[in-house]
């Protein structure tokens, strides 16, 4: 345990300030999301004061929203809802894309062809437009949104997994495993996956950012996470009227969204730099 701490400290000491800042923000938001009920001074949907108090109010630090709910509490609950849903969606997209990508790379031939063409077509349509089309059919609900975004986003994961797995798949040690008569999943799990973990982990961070912005945009448009659930994207939209009166309320959740995505990007940048072995 001591050695582990020591090691972590060593790695962290080499991190650039941007990455440290990113890690700090991510950990804070994760903690806020995990312990939301204990940290938030008021309930998620509790009406606690007069409506539309400005940011910087004595009692309600981030002000209150248009029906008098505490913005600060809702931001904390939003960390749980928005980030949680985005994480779930990314995980789903990743499992789907990575499994199919590995399958396409290892099996090749018609599996690769069919999956590849399917992905080409899905990627030819802009994701936001496609999502809006599907959500019109299925109706807007969190479940539908998660599934639609996961499928659309898995195409990107498919591409990168397939490409990296292809590079590994032609190496001698994979050939040797094949000749030994190892099964498909054994080769994927023991030979290919360990060698493509780093690019995939970086990709997970970037995909998370994309999915998170996507969900926020849909919620902002009123087609994603629905009120009264606290969610950063829809909070921006609901309080946007206050901006015209010189109040900063809608900027707070919008800044939270940007803060998280920028932080993840900073950390991914550093991670890529470390794992690619580029050392000036």
């Amino acid at each position: 345990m001591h050695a582990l701490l020591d090691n972590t400290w060593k790695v962290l000491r080499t991190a650039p300030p941007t990455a440290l800042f990113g890690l700090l923000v991510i950990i804070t938001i994760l903690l806020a999301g995990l312990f939301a009920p204990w940290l938030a001074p008021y309930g998620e949907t509790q009406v606690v004061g007069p409506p539309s108090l400005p940011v910087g109010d004595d009692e309600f630090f981030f002000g209150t929203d248009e029906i008098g709910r505490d913005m600060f509490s809702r931001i904390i609950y939003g960390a749980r809802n928005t980030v949680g849903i985005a994480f779930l969606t990314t995980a789903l997209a990743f499992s789907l894309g990575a499994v199919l990508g590995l399958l396409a790379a290892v099996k090749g031939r018609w599996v690769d062809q069919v999956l590849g063409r399917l992905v080409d077509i899905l990627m030819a349509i802009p994701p936001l437009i496609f999502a809006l089309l599907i959500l019109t059919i299925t109706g807007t609900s969190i479940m539908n949104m998660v599934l639609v975004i996961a499928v659309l986003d898995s195409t990107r994961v498919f591409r990168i997994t397939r490409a990296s797995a292809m590079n590994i798949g032609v190496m001698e040690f994979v050939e040797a495993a094949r000749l030994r008569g190892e099964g498909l999943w054994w080769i994927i799990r023991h030979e290919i996956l360990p060698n493509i973990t780093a690019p995939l982990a970086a990709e997970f961070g970037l995909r998370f950012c994309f999915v998170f912005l996507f969900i926020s945009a849909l919620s902002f448009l009123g087609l994603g996470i629905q009120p009264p659930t606290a969610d950063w994207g829809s909070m921006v939209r609901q309080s946007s009227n206050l901006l015209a009166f010189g109040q900063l309320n809608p900027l707070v959740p919008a800044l939270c969204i940007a803060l998280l995505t920028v932080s993840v990007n900073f950390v991914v940048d550093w991670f890529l730099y470390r794992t690619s072995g580029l050392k000036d």
Partner: protein
Amino acid sequence: MIHILKMVAQRLALGVFILFVVSVIIFMAVELLPGDFVDAILGQAATEATVEAFRYQLGLDRPAYIRYFEWLGDIFQGDLGYSFRAQRPIDDLVLLRLYNTLFLAAYAAAIAVPIALLFGVLAAMYRNSFFDRTVNVVALIAISSPEFLAAYILIFVFAVQLGWFPTLAQVSIDMEFGERLRVLLLPAVTLTLVTMAHMMRMTRASIINLLSHPYIEMARLKGMSNRRIIVRHALPNAIAPIVNVVAINLAYMIVGVVVVEVVFVYPGLGQLLVDSVSNRDMPVVQIACLIFAVTYISLNLLADICSVLSNPRLLHPR
């Protein structure tokens, strides 16, 4: 020459095929509606007879592939169909809004492209300098922020505090050109911020990528100035990837316009699409999606063809 024509023809054929498949997907959306489309529109209270009449009016009693070709044929003849919610032909709704959306996108592109290219070249020229690093961090932040953050900050500063521009982008047909540009400046700048960062980074990357080539080293060894190397030797060779990036970003802009239009309550196609999705006005959603998808795919196709055409090696194949 034959070779390159063949390549362009291939790309075009692929593009047309993808457009065909996408139009089928958009059309099929109606077929995939859970339950019956008619029930969803008319509601539970509809009588047997109204449902039948409506089905007949929509042509839902005929096979899907026939309706698909009729739908497509009508669109080619300029008949976009009929909105359920607004109870009027979609042409009335869409055409003016399409013009508004294209106007906004073109306006934003006219600002974004020159600035992005200039900053990209400057960042490549003085790479690893303070300027380069600042531009890079700002670009990263711009890429990873949601569009509405930039939009609301701009509104807060320039419309609410300073009062230079209106908070909402309200336009009318008889508005003067200059006035229109003024009203639309904030939305255009928002779109610019989002796409510029990406274009700039790609411009910088494609120039730096070229700098490791032997002919650049040769120029450097001749004692040529850094500025001349980049402007005269690297830039012309980077045009292909840069044109590619510009086209891809214009495609992105067409889609990014959706959120920006909603923020500024601008009467464009994106706003119409979002409203129609909430109302589940399927025919309008289909047309709007089709227009967005066709524009997006065409611009990507254009990018593809440009990169083929600008590669001199393909003009003189061995």
